[in-house]
């Protein structure tokens, strides 16, 4: 897993500086600094409610941080949003798509929003639907898609304008193993071609297989940051993760009535 580390880029693809976000007085993200090198495959790990989605949403301009900055490819997300958004491809989690459109219509809509011409949209849509194995569902409304298919069409929307940085929130959730392998291939090829990916997950196996870098987030703060090997330190990633996050392990004496 050495792709990307061969390149020593002048500018990191994404820099987060002192990000803070509070909801109703509770810190969802409490002062977070992160640097994602260009060409890296970055995994953002954390248990449920750790602040992964909040962090990524602030990084892509969906959620205004209380404090701190997000810098994508050298530009401030909140000062220069339109320029930044042009080079960003995002798959948000837990939001609806415009799901009363068919898959093909949704891609065309995304393309038009991105200011692409119709011929390019048609070509790339066909490619994406084909590669993601959604061709059979071209004329089905997205609302009728299965959860995994919705992820795939969301990914297609994120890829359509060939962005330089991909920010993916839980791209492997609810995706079947076959599709997951497919998505992994696509992303690996994308990184190999010079792109940068940061994605959130709590599936250790996927992270270990894909990532060059890992950051572990818990209670709105980064617990550890580094290359995959640095973070693992020769151990199993899952053990490191559980230890950092402070999870408890069942001893067997609880739930005796079960």
């Amino acid at each position: 897993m050495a792709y990307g580390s061969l390149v020593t880029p002048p500018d990191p693809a994404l820099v987060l500086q002192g990000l803070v976000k509070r909801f109703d007085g509770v810190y969802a993200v409490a002062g977070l600094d992160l640097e994602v090198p260009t060409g890296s495959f970055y995994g953002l790990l954390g248990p449920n409610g750790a602040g992964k989605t909040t962090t990524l949403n602030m990084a892509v301009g969906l959620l205004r941080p209380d404090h701190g900055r997000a810098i994508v490819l050298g530009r401030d997300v909140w000062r220069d949003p339109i320029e930044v958004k042009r080079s960003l491809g995002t798959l948000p989690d837990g939001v609806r798509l415009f799901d009363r459109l068919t898959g093909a219509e949704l891609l065309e809509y995304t393309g038009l929003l991105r200011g692409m011409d119709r011929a390019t949209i048609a070509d790339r849509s066909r490619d994406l639907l084909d590669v993601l194995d959604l061709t059979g569902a071209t004329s089905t409304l997205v609302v009728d898609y299965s959860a995994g298919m919705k992820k795939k069409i969301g990914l297609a929307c994120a890829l359509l304008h060939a962005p330089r940085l991909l920010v993916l929130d839980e791209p492997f959730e609810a995706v079947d193993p076959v599709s997951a392998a497919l998505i992994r291939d696509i992303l690996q090829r994308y990184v190999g071609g010079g792109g940068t990916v940061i994605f959130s997950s709590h599936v250790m196996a996927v992270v270990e297989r894909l990532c060059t870098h890992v950051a572990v987030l818990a209670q709105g703060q980064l617990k550890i940051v580094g290359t995959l090997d640095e973070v693992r330190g020769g151990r199993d990633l899952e053990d490191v993760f559980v230890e950092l996050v402070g999870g408890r392990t069942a001893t067997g004496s609880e739930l005796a009535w079960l």
Partner: protein
Amino acid sequence: MTRVFVRLKLRLLRNSFRGAGWRKVLAVLGILGGLWFALFGGMLFSLSGVRGQGYSVAVLGGAGVALSWITLPVLAFGVDETLDPSRFALLPMRRSTLLKGLLVAALLGIPAVSTLVATQGLVLGAAIRGGAAAAAVAFLGTVLGLLLCVAASRATTSALATALRSRRSRDAAMLLLALLAAGLGPLQLAGISVVQALGADRLLAAARVVAWTPLGAPYAIGLDAAAGRWVQVALRVLLTAATIAVLLRWWGATLPAAMLGTASAGRARPASAAGGLVPPPLRGLPSGQFTGILARELKYWWRDPRRRSGLVSLLIVAIVLPLVYGFGVGGRMTGILLVSGAMVGTMLANLFGFDGSAYTANVLVGVPGRVEVSARVGAISVVVLPPVAATAVVTGSLNGDGRTLASLGVALCAYGVSAGLSVIISVVVPYALPDSSNPFAMNAGTGGLRGFASFGPLLAAAALAAPLVVLPLPSPVTLVVGLVVGGAIVTAGILIAGGRVDERAPELLQAVTARR
């Protein structure tokens, strides 16, 4: 078990006071509105103590309240679905238990309580006429009447929602909705104008007939008891109770379907050509964000059941109202066109709320505010302006005073003013629609918002377009002035709302995202 529902509902009501400031303001406004209705209605209903017309006040007033309970949720406000039946789908619970719980929860809302308080005027009236016994009977009547109102409104919306949900019966359900919307609302108004024309004696005669329908019966028994007509009291109580039973059965029958949600998605739509977002008539437009949003909005006004039901019922009222009402009253025709144009404009009062979290897609791209808002206004205008203009022309020419163009001017001016103000409201006080499949569902607290939000534009449209109705300008001049004023306000609305979107798109997205 019912106590659990009561506690849950009370907790949810209390929680509507938490959160953002304007949410609290709205909750307070809702309570104040309920209080106003309770006091004002109570005073009106206590007029039933007057000899002679007291009977018509009680029966026709009561029937009016009951009709409003059935029609208003469908037409305007939506049902308070704080306790959405689908949330209980997985719990091992008998249907009768669930029904009882939901009924009690529905009785605990502001509308139900204020209705009950308002109708207590009848108890007062009956006490004046017939003493304590009559007052007790009148009280029984108000309780039965309230039960009937709640059961009827729940049953109709639940049945309609279920029908609209399954795509196969969509067309049939649309027809039902259309008939309901078109029939009841304007007929109520037409009925009032008929009653005014008929005079007091006929009014009493009408009240005697209505008192034998379930709508009026519970409100008549107090005065019947005061007059010693105990057989009629018994028969009317039976009639009301039987109707309530039937309505509850009907509601119960639609509950399982309502609990299923939209899981039954149905068949795939016939394939449109690859892509196919932009319909052929729009292909001439330059490819880009404006065209994309316009085309998507056009599809959504038809494909999203929530938008469709709102649009269709409003359009039908806007078309039928001038036709029905205008014929009876004659001179006020252009005035009613003003109302109809302004009403259609209020469709824009929650432009982004319909999208919910799907609006993320546009924020991710950073669509400029003016493009965003003008495309949305454009889409709805393409849908509603032809029927509104046609109605104005038809009623205007039927009027026979040669002021067809003036009618068109008034309708378009009212639409423009109301639309311009509505888009500003839609970005200043955006609100989330619940993530429910029920097209009539509203969140508690924001329930009255749809009403409040559409009230301002209506008033403004009335203020700005009324001079066109009153002033004796030549007909073509009225049209030109109407177009200029309406156009100017829409443009101003788009610019202001667009600027606001540019500044606060992420906050807008948060506001319209339904909390999970």
